[in-house]
C-alpha cells in the first residue's frame, strides 16, 4: 500500500485507531487488523502515552477480565486526548460496559468478537448501524456490525451456544452467574439494588412421568416465556438447571442516574419492591396459564416455588446470594410449594406483602 493511500485512509478515519488490551479476544481474526490504520499497544500505559501524542480518531480498549483500575485508565485517555473511546467487551462484560458508558468514562461499546473492519466502519462513520451503544444498550441483543451476513449469523450462533439454554432460549447458568457477579461488583462501587430470584417448577417429575418428557419440556418452555414476559428488558433471566430458573433484577444504569444518593441508600437497604412486584406478577401469570398438552387438567396447574435474596442484605457475593435464595426456595417447597419466599422476613411469603 502506498503512502498516499495510507494518508487518504487516515483522513477518511479522521486519524488512526489506537488499540489496547488482549486483541485476540476482541477480533474474529487478529490477522485482519490493518496496521496502517491503527497503532497497537498491548499495555494500557503505553497506549495512554501514545494517546497523549495525539493523532487518533478513536481508542479501542479491550475490557480485561480483571479490570480494577480500568476506570482510572479511561479517565487518563479522556484527559490526554479527544479521541472517542470504544470499549471492546465480551458478552458477559456488557453490564460493566454499560455502566462505564453511563458514567461517561467511555463513548460506546461493541460486543466482541468483531472484525477489524467493523471497528473501522464505526470510527469512520460509514457504518449504517452506527447508533451509539449506550442507546442500544436498552435492547440487550447487541448485534455484531460490519460483517457479512453469514459470518454474523455464525457469530450469533456461537454466542447463543455459549450463553443460552437451547430448550427455553433463556440465558444459561454460566451467563447468569457472570452477569450477577458483574452487577454485584458494580453495586459494590456505586450502590444499587440487586435481587436474585431462584425458582423451580413444582411437580415437573410427576408431569414427565404421566405425560412424557415432551410435555415436561413444554412446561419448562411455558414457564420461561412467562418469566421473561414479566421481567424488565434489562433483567437477566436464565435456566440454571433441569427445572431450575434464576432471574437477576438490577437497576438500569440510566435510571440509576436519576436516583439521588439518599434514595439509593434506602432502596438498597431492603428487598426492592420492583422485584417483589415482578415475582408476584409472574405467579399471577402462572395461575392463568393453560397447558394444552395436559388436556382439560392443564389450566392453572403450572406452579413454581422460589426464593428471593437481595444484595447487600442477604449476601455480598453471587455465591452467597444463590445460597440464600436456594435456602428460601427449599423452605418454600417444604411449606407446601407454589409460593415464593423472601430471605430473612418474618412473614416471608411474598403473597403476604402488600
Amino acid at each position: 500500500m502506498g503512502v498516499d493511500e495510507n494518508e487518504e485512509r487516515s483522513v477518511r478515519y479522521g486519524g488512526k485507531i489506537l488499540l489496547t488490551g488482549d486483541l485476540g479476544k476482541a477480533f474474529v481474526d487478529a490477522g485482519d487488523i490493518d496496521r496502517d490504520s491503527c497503532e497497537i499497544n498491548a499495555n494500557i500505559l503505553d497506549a495512554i502515552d501514545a494517546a497523549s501524542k495525539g493523532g487518533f480518531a478513536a481508542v479501542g480498549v479491550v475490557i480485561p477480565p480483571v479490570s480494577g483500575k480500568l476506570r482510572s485508565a479511561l479517565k487518563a485517555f479522556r484527559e490526554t486526548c479527544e479521541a472517542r473511546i470504544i470499549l471492546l467487551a465480551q458478552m458477559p462484560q456488557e453490564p460493566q460496559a454499560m455502566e462505564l458508558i453511563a458514567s461517561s468514562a467511555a463513548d460506546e461499546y461493541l460486543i466482541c468478537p468483531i472484525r477489524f473492519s467493523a471497528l473501522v466502519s464505526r470510527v469512520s462513520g460509514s457504518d449504517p448501524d452506527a447508533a451509539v451503544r449506550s442507546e442500544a444498550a436498552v435492547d440487550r441483543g447487541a448485534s455484531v456490525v460490519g460483517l457479512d451476513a453469514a459470518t454474523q449469523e455464525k457469530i450469533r450462533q456461537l454466542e447463543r451456544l455459549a450463553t443460552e439454554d437451547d430448550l427455553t432460549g433463556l440465558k444459561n447458568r454460566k451467563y447468569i452467574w457472570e452477569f450477577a457477579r458483574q452487577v454485584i461488583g458494580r453495586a459494590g462501587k456505586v450502590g444499587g439494588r440487586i435481587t436474585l430470584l431462584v425458582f423451580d417448577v413444582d411437580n415437573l417429575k410427576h408431569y414427565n412421568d404421566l405425560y412424557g418428557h415432551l410435555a415436561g419440556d413444554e412446561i419448562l418452555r411455558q414457564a420461561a416465556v412467562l418469566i421473561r414476559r414479566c421481567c424488565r428488558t434489562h433483567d437477566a433471566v436464565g435456566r440454571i438447571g433441569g427445572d431450575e430458573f434464576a432471574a437477576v433484577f438490577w437497576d438500569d444504569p440510566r435510571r440509576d442516574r436519576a436516583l439521588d444518593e439518599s434514595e439509593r441508600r434506602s432502596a438498597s437497604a431492603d428487598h426492592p419492591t420492583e422485584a417483589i412486584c415482578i415475582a408476584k406478577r409472574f405467579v399471577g401469570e402462572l395461575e392463568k396459564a393453560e397447558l394444552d398438552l395436559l388436556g382439560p387438567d392443564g389450566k392453572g396447574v403450572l406452579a413454581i416455588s422460589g426464593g428471593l435474596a437481595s444484595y447487600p442484605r442477604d449476601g455480598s457475593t453471587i455465591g452467597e446470594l444463590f445460597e440464600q435464595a436456594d435456602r428460601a426456595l427449599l423452605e418454600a417447597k417444604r411449606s407446601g410449594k407454589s409460593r415464593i419466599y423472601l430471605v430473612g422476613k418474618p412473614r416471608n411469603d411474598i403473597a403476604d406483602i402488600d
Partner: protein
Amino acid sequence: MGSQLQMIAVGSSSDEFVRVVLNLSGRYDLDTVLCEDVYSGVCKLGEALGGVVVGRQEELGREDGRFFDIARMYGFTCCCFVDKGVAGRQRELVKAMERGVVVVTELREIDELLMDLANRSGVHKSRVRGDGRRGPTDRPASGRTSGFSKDEFLMTKAEMDALLGA
C-alpha cells in the same frame, strides 16, 4: 511552563506518605505535580525535562511495572516507597530494581533524594521538541537524570536482602 516540572508524586492525596512527599517537595521548592495513579502519571511524563517520580511500589508497579520503563524513556527516575513487610512482592521488587528503580523503605531516604535533586537541579538541560513535549529519545545521558544522581540511591545487594528477608 511544563518543562520546569521536576517531580511527579503518584498516589492518593489522602495517603499519609503522599502528603509527606508533597511537604518535602515544598520544602525544597521543587516543581511538583500530584497524580492520583500511574495512568494519569503517564500523561505527565512527556510534559517535563525529566525528573523523579515518587510513589508507593503498589501503585507505580501496576500493569506489570510498565510505568517504570516509560518513565525512564522520558528521563525520569522512579523512586518506590516500600513499607516493611514485603512478603510476596519480592519478585516485583527485584524486577523494579533491575529496571533502575530506586527502592526506599524509609521516608528519610526520600528526604535525602529530594534534597539531592534540589541541589543538583538545573545542572542538566535536555532538548525540548518543537511541540513542547519531550520524546523518548530526548533522554538525558545515562547515569544522570535531570541533575539527579540516582546511583547514590540505588539499593545495595545487602540492603535488598535485608529488606526481602533473604
